[in-house]
Structures are given as C-alpha cells and as structure tokens.
C-alpha cells in the first residue's frame, strides 16, 4: 500500500502511518494528497467531497490533516446554530482565541473576513490552511451569501487557504440559481464487499483468533450485504450477533474451524435480525434477553416496533375509531354506514366505479369536529352527555399525536383534524372494545 501514498513533501513512515489508518481508502487519500500538493504551494480554493454515510469522508480528512500536521479547522455545520460559531471556530483554530474574541457581538461575513485578513497579515500562511466543513448541506439553509463566499474564500481573504466541504448530497443540489465559484468535486465511492470484509475484520474480539472472526464476518456479509451496505450498521449487527455465534464454541460442541456447523447455528438468528435491519430497536442487552426468551417459546422478535399497543381510556378509543372512520371514509358515505335504516341507498350505486385508488393509499383526509362527534355518538353503544372531558380527550389525543390538528391552532370556530394512526393500530384498538371496524370502512366493502 506504500506504493499508493507517495509525496515528496512528507517522509515515508508518516505516510505509512496514514495508510494504515485508512484501509481501503488509499486511492482517495492519494488523490487528495496530490491535490493538496506541497504545503507551501497554493491548493484549489474549494474542494467538494461527496459520498454515502460511513464512506470515510471525514475520517480520511481528519487523519490526513492530523498526521501530516497541517494547519486546519474542522467544523460540523449541524453544530453551527449561528454563523458566529462557525467564524469563531475557524479563527480560533488558526490564530488562537484572542483572534476569535476580536469578532463583534453578531458578526457579519465581512467582519469575519476583515478579522481574518488582519490576522493573517500578522501571521501569513507558510503552509496551506484547510477548513473542513462536515454536513455541508446545512450551509444552504444559512444566509445566501455564506456558501459562495466560502467557495472563494481564498481570493476574498487573500490567504493560502482551502475550504473542503463534505456532504452526502451531490453538488448539483448546492448550486445557487445565479451560479457561483465551482469547487473541485470528488466522490468517495461506497466500499465493495471485499473492502467491507477487510475493514470489519479489523475490530476482532480479543479472545478469538482473527480468522475465526473474519469467517464470522464473512457469514454476516453473506446474509446482509444485499440489503445493507452501511458500514456502521454492519458493525452494529456484527457486535450484536457475535455472542450468539460463539455460543456453540463456549459449549464446546464445535471447534473454531467447523464453519459449516457455526453457520447453521447462527443463520436463523441473522435471518430474524434481517427483519429489523436499520431499526436499531434493541440494545445488545435486550437482544440477549430475547434470544434466551426464544429458547423457551419461539416468539417473533419484539423490538420497539412491536410495542405499538397503547392503553387508552374507553371513550378515547371510540373517539380514535370515529376519527379513523371520518378520515378514511368519504363524507357522503356516512349516511349509509351510520344511519340505522338508510332505505334506498343501494350498494351498487353507492360504490362509485370511477374511484379505484383506495383511501388507504392516498392517506387520511381532514374532517371537521362535528362530523367526528356525529360519528362518535353513533358508534359508541351507550349514549353519553357531551361532557367537557370528551372534548379534552380530543385535544389530548392531539398532543399524543394520534390525531393531528390540520387547521391552525388559533382557529376556534370549526377545527379540522386528521387521524394519524395506522390500520393495524386502529384494528387492535377496536378489537379491545370488540368493534368490527372493517365493516365500517369504505375501502373494504
């Protein structure tokens, strides 16, 4: 790998060290190095690096700048609630805190540039300075001039500085409509399967041999690679399932080399884990508990998503049901559903042919309060006085986000709501009050 990283400016073993810290990213690192060139030289004013999450963008930058001891400032844009923080961090890491304190209370861009200029007139850059911006996509949300200014910062501050933007989003989405100085765009491609294998095998369990672990990783990738290529997620899964994988070893049933047995042992668990990939529902601890639980009765994996059941007061349940009906049934059908003897409305003419897309695809429609109440009264079996607590329940359902208020909060006259629960949820609810909701849903006639 030493062949990849070569540069006259830095001595060998340093580059060596860098290369070791950047497995499977030598190519990109080399590219960057050659672009940066010799520290004394100018580098391109702004470089834009994009690539998927966990493709090593910030890691590579960090390692390079750290190991080669180049002057740099790393800023995460998500952290910059105000541009002030951004300016401060940059000045701080270049010129020390006294420079940062020179900024006025709420500094403008020009203040920043001014301070920067006068500072670097005192201490001009012998080496190229680098400003690394993580999550650069957030720069678009700040005031319009910031991004263009950063892109040509070198020319504005007349200093040997390079701005490096890191993002998951392609550059085309950044370009302001009147255009701006175009940065040098680089791509960090996702890791291939082999690379993933190599990287994941590095964090091996101390008490097991390397090849054992890598065989484990091999199995893991075999299952998950098709659905998940996110390094971070894979690492998480590896950590989660490893203990299970080693179990037969601990019991002394099989020996490390017998991969096939191990595979047969672990495979069902991995398959089950597949169903909840990306959900991060369970911490490792819970996971183990579940595994034990499964030994006894093979219940499906109960992660966060499984606990969807919600205890509700009796009338709240009916209110929710009514809301669901109100938002998934067309208003004109209420008559048929809720009138005891809706004489002549024949099912044939009541079902319109023209509407073929069901409301469960289009989503809930807003409804007015009184429609909700009308349905509520006809749905609930006993007759209830319209007490204050009924209404308060509606609002508390809104705060629980089971309903959403569509109309604006200050509109008191005829508030509109939407039902925000899923089909399964409402079915579970109506089962508890044994109310057959499907009979009342227009889509399922």
């Amino acid at each position, binding site marked *: 790998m030493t062949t990849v990283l070569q540069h006259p400016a830095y001595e060998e073993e340093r580059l060596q060290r860098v290369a070791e810290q950047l497995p499977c990213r030598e190519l990109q690192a080399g590219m960057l190095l050659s672009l940066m060139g010799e520290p004394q030289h100018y580098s391109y004013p702004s470089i834009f690096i994009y690539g998927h*999450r966990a493709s090593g963008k910030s890691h590579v930058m960090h390692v390079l700048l750290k190991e080669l001891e180049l002057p740099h400032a790393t800023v*995460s844009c*998500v*952290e910059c*609630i*105000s541009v*002030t*923080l951004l300016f*401060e961090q940059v000045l701080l890491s270049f010129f020390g805190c006294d420079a940062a304190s020179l900024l006025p*209370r709420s500094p403008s861009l020009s203040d920043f540039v001014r301070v920067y200029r006068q500072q670097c007139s005192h201490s001009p850059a012998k080496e190229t300075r680098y400003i690394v911006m993580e*999550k650069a996509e957030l720069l678009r949300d700040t005031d319009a001039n910031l991004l263009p200014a950063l892109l040509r910062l070198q020319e504005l501050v007349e200093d040997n500085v390079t701005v490096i933007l890191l993002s998951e989003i392609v550059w085309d989405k950044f370009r302001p409509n009147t255009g701006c100085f175009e940065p040098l765009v680089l791509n960090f491609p996702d890791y291939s399967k082999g690379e993933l294998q190599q990287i994941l095998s590095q*964090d091996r*369990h*101390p*008490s097991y041999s390397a090849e054992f672990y890598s065989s484990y990783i091999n199995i893991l990738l075999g299952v998950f690679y098709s659905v998940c290529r996110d390094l*971070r*997620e894979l*690492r*998480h899964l*590896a*950590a989660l399932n*490893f*203990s299970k994988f080693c179990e037969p070893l601990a019991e002394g049933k099989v020996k490390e080399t017998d991969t096939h047995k191990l595979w047969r042992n672990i495979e069902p668990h991995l398959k089950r884990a597949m169903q909840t990939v*990306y*959900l*991060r*529902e*369970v*911490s*490792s*601890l*819970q996971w183990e508990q579940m595994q034990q639980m499964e030994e006894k009765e093979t219940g499906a994996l109960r992660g*966060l*998503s499984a*606990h*969807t*059941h*919600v*205890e*509700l*007061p*009796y*009338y*709240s349940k009916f209110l929710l049901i009514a809301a669901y009906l109100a938002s998934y049934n067309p208003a004109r059908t209420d008559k048929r559903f809720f009138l005891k003897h809706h004489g002549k409305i024949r099912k044939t003419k009541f079902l319109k042919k023209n509407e073929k897309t069901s409301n469960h695809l289009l989503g809930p429609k807003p409804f007015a309060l009184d429609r909700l109440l009308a349905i509520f009264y006809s749905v609930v079996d006993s007759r209830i*006085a*319209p*007490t*204050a*607590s*009924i209404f*308060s*329940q509606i609002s*508390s359902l809104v*705060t*629980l*986000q*089971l309903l959403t208020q569509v109309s604006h909060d200050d509109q008191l*006259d005829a508030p509109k709501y939407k039902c925000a629960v899923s089909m399964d949820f409402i079915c579970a609810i109506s089962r508890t009050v044994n109310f057959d909701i499907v009979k009342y849903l227009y889509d399922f006639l």
Partner: protein
Amino acid sequence: MSTSSVSKGCFVFKPSAKKRKTLSPKDYFSDGCEGAENSDVRFKLCQDLWDKIKTDTEVLQDELNRKILDSLLDFTRKCSSTRQHSDWALQMRASEIPTAALVLGVNVPDHDMTFQSLSELLQQSVTPHVASVQAKECGALKHLMKRVLERLMDTVVAVDDDEEEAAEQTNGQVHKSVHCSLNTLCDWYNTVTKKSNSGTPGKKRSSPVKDEQQQPPVVVIFKDLEAFNPRVLQDFILICSRYIDRLPLMFIFGIATSPSTIQHMLPHSVSSLLCIELFQSLSCTQHLATVIDKLILTNDFPFKLNSKVMQVLISIFLYHDFSVRNFIKGVQLALLEHFHSQPLSVLCCKKKDAQLNVMQLSHRNLERIKQLPSFKRYIEKQEPQEQASLLNDDTHLKEVCKKLIKDLHKYHKNYYPILSCLHTLTSSLPRYPLGKQIRELHLTCLEKNVWENEDYQSAMKLLKMLAKDELITLLQRCAEILQPVKSKKIKEALVHLEELLAKLKQLDTAAAAETSPTVEETITSPMKNLQKKTDLFQLQKTLLEMNESRRSKKLSPFEVLRNEALDFIDDLVKKHLSPPESHTLNEVCYYSSSATVRRHLNATPRTCIQAALSSPYYYLQNENLKTEDGSVSNAAPDICIAYKLHLECGRLINLCDWLEAYSTVVSAAEGNDPDSDNFGKVDDVKHARFIRAVSELEFLGFIKSTKQKTDHVARLTWGGC
C-alpha cells in the same frame, strides 16, 4: 352612601378597610355550610384526614415507581461504568449514546410526579448532572441547547463552592449565544469532575458509588418526546454524538404512547447513534387498583364513599382519563363536600374522638340525628317506651349513639377482611361471576345484599365443585388474610376456619382409603375441564350434570366437609357484608351525593346552557317563569324566547320571520290585546332587544352568519322540538 356635593358627577367610594380582609380557607369552609356551630371542628377533621390521605398516596406513588426507577438507575450506573469498561461488545458500542425509553402511558397529568422523583433519585445516587427539558420550551435547537446548558450548570452552581465564576459563565451564555455550544459544556464538565475527584466537599452524596464518580454521566431527560419537534431533536442528538467521547452523555425519553414513536421521529442516521433500552412503567389500571386498596378498602379512614360516588369516580377514570391524580382529587372533593354539607360529620373520625364528639353534640344536631332515615328505621324497631326515651331524652340518645357508632366501626372492621376473603375465593373462578377486580365486588356489596344476587349464587355453586387441593389452598389464603385482624368475631371465624382446614388435611391422609377413587374423579374432573371451556352454555350443562351426580350417589366425607366450609363462608358473608345503608348512622361516614361529584368533575357546559335557555326557571327561580311541558313562558328573558323560536326553524333561519315571531311573543307578554292593529308591531325597542338576543345566541355558538342566503343565519345545532 351619599355626598353633600351639588354638582353632578360620579364619586368613587372605596370600601372600608375591614371589608377587605383576606379569608382563610377555614372561613371559606365555615361560611354557608350547614350547622356552622361545629364547623371548625369539622374543618379540622377534614384537614387532618386529607393530609393523611395525601401523604399516604405520595408514599404509595413512590413505592409504585420504585421498581422501574431502580432499573433505570441501574441502567444509568451501568452506562456510566461502561466508559472505563474493557468488554469487547461494549467497546463496539462505545460511540453510541445510551438512551432509556421510558414508557409511561397516556395519563400525562401523572407524569410530572414520576419525573420529579426520578431526577431526585438520579441526583442522589448516580450523578449530580441532570437536566430535564420539556417540548414547549425548546422550539428551536438553540433554545434546547440553552436550556440544557443552563440547567446543568445551574445545578453545579447549587452544588459547587465557587458560585461566581460558574454563575457569570452561565449568564454569560444566556446573553451571548456564542458560547451556547457543547464545547463550553465539555470544558465545564472537565473542571467539575477534576474538582470532585480531588475530593472537595459538595459531592458527599456521591460517596456510595465512588468508582463511577470518576465520570458521572450527564443525563438529559426529555419529558414529552412526542411533542418535540423532530428536526430539533435530530440535530441535538447529532451534535451530542460528536462529543460522546469527551462527555459521558445519556438520554431519557419520556414516552406517552408507544416506543415506536422513536422510529417515527428519528431517521436511521440519527437513531443509529443511540443505544436504546426500553422501560415499561406499570399500567395505570394496576396503579388505580393499588390506590383503591390502600385508600378505599381500608379501615383506617373513617370517611367512606357510597356505591354511586364510587361508581362515578371509577367511571371517570376508566372512560375519560387514566389519571390516578384526578381520581384522588375526586376523593378529596367528596371529602370536602361531606364535611362541608353534613353537620353530623363531626362523628366521622376515629372511634374515641367520635365517642367524645357524641357527647359534645348540640340539641340541633341531635334533632338532625333523629331525622336520619337510618336512625328512623332504628327507632321503629324499638319498643314504645324505648322509642319515647330516644325521642325525648337527649342523654339517653347520646348513649345510644355511642353504641351505634361503636357498632358502625365494628362493622367496618369486619367488612374488609371478609370482603377480601370472598374475593380470593371467587376471583379464581371461571368467568369471574363476582368480578375480576376487588373493587367490583366492593361495589356490589355496597349496593345491596350480595348473597341475593344470582352471580353470588352461581359463584357458590362453582365453589361447591372445587377439588380438594384447590379448596384447601383458597381457604389457607383466607386464613392468612384473617390472621392479622384483631376483632373478636373474626378471631372466632379464624379458629373455625383452622379447624375446617385441619379436618380437610387429615381427611387427606385418612380418606384416601375409604373414599372410592371413582367418586373423586367424577367430582374433580368436571371442574377440571370446566376450567378449560368456559362458555356459559357449557357451564350450565356441567352444573346440571354435577347435580345429577350429586343426587345419584351419597355424599363423600370430603363433600360434606366442603359444603360445611362453604356454608360457613356463606354465613360469614351474610353476617358481615351487608350494605352500609342497612346500618344505623351510616350517613355520618358515607358520602352519598354522586350528582354533586359528577357535576364538579365531569361538567357538561353545553347542556347547562341549553337547560338555562329552555327552562330559565331552573336557574332564575322566578315563579312566573314556571311552565309545564317545557314550553317557555313569554315573560322569559329575550334570549330564551329567541332560542325557543329558533329551535322551531330548519338549518337556515330567516331573520325577518324570526323577528316577527319574536315581537308577537313579546307583545303578548306585554299584555296588549291580540286584535289591536299594532299588536306584534316591531318598534325600535323590540328590534334592539331582538338584535341583542340574536347576537348573544351567536356568541354562545347556536347560530352563525352564512354566505349562502342573504338575511339568513345558519343553525349550528341539530333537532329541536
């Protein structure tokens, strides 16, 4: 009040000073309550009782929360310790922020208490650095940051010695949001931890868990996760994850609905930064059950609720809000009402005090006692001369009252143990003939004689089919319940029960020989399969055939014993579980006006308004407004008339017609003769009054102006007459 001024003008008369003295709750209590003479005594009693209830419930709350809180604390400890941990699995997850998802149920009003105790416990036992935030105070990210930083550093200001620098640091960042970054927090954290490790005073509390205290975690509690703006939350978590190596952060999410909301709020890129652990708090129904056990079904509160009031409170809980807090509030209301409205509630207290208070009773109160229905019934039962002496001789009456009070207390003393015995016996039966929860049984007992309703009968039948081992276990449980009670009757009962048990047991040893196994199984087996299939039809069928079998063959000694035992239980019930109404002077302790409670706790504003409009007499108590068959007299206020008229209209109301009708009615009220030509003429005054009435109706939300037709208004209510 008059002035000597000749000039016209308005004069302000300040009320004199003595009028403006602020009233203490005591005064509020005493004014306008029945029998003011002993009001302060009652107030005192009421106060004490309420304080007792309050403290008890709080203790209860704490020990209910204890379990989940403890597990949470363990979790936090674990997390804070894993920092130094060298376990591989934990190392792999070192970059994740430990997060506890705390599912609390939908009874939001109760949550505050839980969080309060939680943060206190945390601060005592795990870490001094706890900040809890609410959604409504963090609209934007910077607000959230600000809150968190302030809270954390303020707690430090409270703990640490050097106030000033920390103080100026905090208010520095209050003024200038520049410092509002986690960097500040990290620096601050480092200084604090260094201090604590060098062992300054101020963290003495952290002594028990010294080893963690090297790195006490920084806990952020999000009280109501659902209400947070997802964007803000995501950004905050992203920022925090950048500092996780320098700052041992951990989160606690308070969730009302279900854990899956976390997934709804956080995309994978964010949730992958968290290591979520789930904690389920106990459901509020269980909570209520315990509260009722400790509060209602106990002998140490003289104050009781009768069945109706109980019904109201429980139904409010079950139907409207799962809030235990509100339930207790309801009890408080009932308590207050009772002592406020019932003069004889002086006797509602501990036995001895009651005895004393009886002696203090004034003549009027004795009269009141005589008026009590239960007491009347009592008198009727007595012999004539006894009656006479009761009615005329106050001292004698007092003596009797003392006795009666004693009886009442005895009754209570016996009631609850027996109740729970019955519950233990019946609660395991199929289909729960007497209810699953003890509160249901309690209600039935309060209403009327339990042994008269058929559920009880069927329950008894079922009990008669119990196999021996089951019966023995149940009876033993009963014995355990009766054990601690020290009342004469119960003691006797207990003795008897022990004997029965002994018999059963030794039967067990001896009997095996003579009782033919066939009988055994014929008796036990149906019960067995009855456990399994428990639909009503099956039940009756099996019951029938049981009877068959019983009639067919002579009883085995076990059956004899069993029947004996059950009869014993039965007459225990008959003796002790009679409803309170049957007991004399029960009005003293039992609060009965459910209507009041309902009116206060479950208000129906709209019906009130409608009642007021349709029958003004109900509120105004004015004789000539009295009408029959719900029609409004034309002397009623304008708005009532307008309302009445509008009820007769359809969805759209023509204002002109309405005005016409109105003016006719009103002029009829003025009593000008119907056939004079200007009868029902609209003059300006009527017009003005009409307009006013209409606008009032609009304000009350019965009508609203509409675009559909000119000079029409739309009705907002259905139906009418």
